[in-house]
């Protein structure tokens, strides 16, 4: 197809002699063979690319009108909402986009857990993915501060105080990051700089590596079968189909369905029922008036619940620091999955009952922690947060044991049925 495209085009031929146009097209599109049995869960990779694009473009236009300074930041958001042509639309896209980014990324990660996409030979692909998730959390945190509403201010204060809880170096580290003895306009300006330059560059770079690494090892699939093991005489996997045109036209459907949901929220529920835009953030930042209940945006709440679950000092170090350790441990452990999973099978379809039950418990505990973290700590009995934190950790730390003890079914060589 590529050569056919290049045939009549002198200019393209000229470029192709100087830049690997045809080679890249073949490697990543027309001769990248993807398993033919992708299902619903395989939509969320491409959808996160779509949201990344939306965030990137809407972010450029917001940067043109936003003022990163404590005096004017809040007013400049209202200026964008009221006086800039279509400013409200661009701002809502960016704000709803942030939440949708995390929705699709969480579903994308869940797919990885479900079908064992982290297992050999995709360990590095998984590690790059974990790095993307961490960078994305940083980007979200920095961006949430920019409207300079009261929740932006107090949320940032709570998170930055975690750094201050690190023994010995914490306090000076916190001052270094804030650029001031408290969260102030200086912090706002530097967070803006990081939000629009360093972190997006990292994010795009990592996403690029994620795709290159994916195309090197090939996609996993719901059966967890390595399609590269069975090839025809031309070296084409028998269970693979060219990514272009088959998956490009296939993925247009979920993209349009996604856009219907996305624009449905933008036009009808832009504040996401108080979860995407929190009501206290409609008051400007005020260091003298604390919101009644400080909660991070919904996508951080599972980790916030874990932080609050640790309520006792230990070894003379504050509970807050141990909470930080548990919280970062919860994220860090995800990176070790390729080496924690000892099962011979990748997909849940061939793994044993122990793996299935543990994944179900893990999912329940993650969602429950998310709900708990969005509410005041006395909303439910106190034992719930520590209990579900334990289950969360048991999923990872117990994995070497339950995956090697359970009986898994033998994985076939070929993809037999449809999905």
């Amino acid at each position, binding site marked *: 197809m590529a050569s056919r495209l290049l045939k009549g085009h002198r200019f393209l031929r000229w470029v192709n002699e100087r830049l690997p146009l045809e080679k890249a097209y073949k490697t990543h599109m027309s001769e990248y063979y993807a398993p*033919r049995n992708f299902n619903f869960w395989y939509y969320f990779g491409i959808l996160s690319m779509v949201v990344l694009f939306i965030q990137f473009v809407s972010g450029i236009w917001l940067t043109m009108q936003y003022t990163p300074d404590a005096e004017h930041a809040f*007013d400049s958001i*209202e200026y964008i*909402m*009221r006086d800039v042509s279509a400013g*409200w*639309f661009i701002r809502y896209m960016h704000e709803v986009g942030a939440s949708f980014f995390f929705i699709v990324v969480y579903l994308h990660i869940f797919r990885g857990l479900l079908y064992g996409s982290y297992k050999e030979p995709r360990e590095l692909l998984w590690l790059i993915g974990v790095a993307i998730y961490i960078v994305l959390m940083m980007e979200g945190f920095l961006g949430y501060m920019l409207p300079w509403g009261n929740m932006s201010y107090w949320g940032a204060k709570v998170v930055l105080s975690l750094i201050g809880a690190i023994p010995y170096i914490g306090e000076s580290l916190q001052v270094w990051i804030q650029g001031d003895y408290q969260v102030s306009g200086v912090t706002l300006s530097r967070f803006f700089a990081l939000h629009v330059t360093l972190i997006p560059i990292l994010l795009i770079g990592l996403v690029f590596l994620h795709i290159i690494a994916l195309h090197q090892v090939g996609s996993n699939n719901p059966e967890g079968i390595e399609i590269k093991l069975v090839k025809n005489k031309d070296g084409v996997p028998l269970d693979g*189909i060219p990514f272009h*045109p*088959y998956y490009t*036209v*296939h993925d*247009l*459907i979920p993209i*349009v*369905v996604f*856009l*219907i949901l996305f*624009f*449905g929220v*933008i*036009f*009808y529920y*832009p*504040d996401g029922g108080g979860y995407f835009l929190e*009501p*206290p953030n*409609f*008051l400007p930042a005020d260091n003298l008036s604390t919101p009644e209940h400080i909660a991070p945006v919904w996508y951080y709440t599972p980790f916030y619940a874990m932080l609050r679950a640790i309520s006792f000092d230990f070894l003379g170090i504050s509970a807050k620091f141990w909470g930080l350790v548990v919280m970062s441990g919860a994220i860090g452990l995800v990176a070790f999955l390729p080496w924690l999973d000892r099962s011979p099978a990748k997909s849940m379809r061939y793994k044993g009952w122990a793996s299935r039950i543990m994944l179900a418990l893990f999912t329940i505990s993650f969602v429950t922690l998310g709900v708990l973290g969005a509410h005041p700590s006395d909303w439910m009995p106190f034992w719930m947060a520590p209990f579900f934190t334990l289950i969360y950790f048991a999923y990872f730390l117990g994995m070497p044991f339950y995956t090697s003890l359970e009986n898994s079914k033998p994985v076939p060589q070929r993809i037999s049925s449809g999905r």
Partner: protein
Amino acid sequence: MINWRWAVVLSILVSATCLGAEPNLRKVNVDIQDTGAQKRGFKIYMEYCKGCHSAKFMRYERIATDLSIDPEEMRSQYINDSSSLHDSIRSTAPSDSLSKLFGAAPPDLSLWARYRGEDWLYSYLTGFYFDSERSFSYNNKVLHNVNMPWVLNYQQTHETPKIFGERIRDLTSFMVYMAEPIRSYRESMGQYVLLFLALLLIPVYLLKQSYWREISQ
């Protein structure tokens, strides 16, 4: 006399529920397309609220356009200070003298409806009542020991509850409009965008089907 223990327990329970639960807010269900109500609410805002509360993000010109008020009418009937059409709503009294008088500066109300919600506004504004315990003999059901004066005292005590309720509903409508002037346009635009995307789904689906027919064979 035997039951005094129960009385104590009961009163603790009752006060605990009163403290713990959010006060029951009255539903108002404002209609964001009803510019008539917003216009009447705007009039009330200018007469009773603007004295103390600015709305610094709301320009008179924008209100004139959105609520179809003639610029001349806006100047003569609504704007009651030296502001021009391009200005935003400024409070009449300086806020530092007001904060001395009431103990807190009256907040800017541009975004109040998005901060508190329409039901809170409606319940608060209809929630004033006589309370002999307090020095000025009034209180509020939603915001206990309120500092704000009972501005609409005369209306609330001299009008029928129905008429007064309608009046507050108009004021709430205006404040909901003011918190997000684009909202009614946004919601009416949304249907075209969604309709377009829904129609787009058809060719996209047929395209996929035509390509994948080769594979399923």
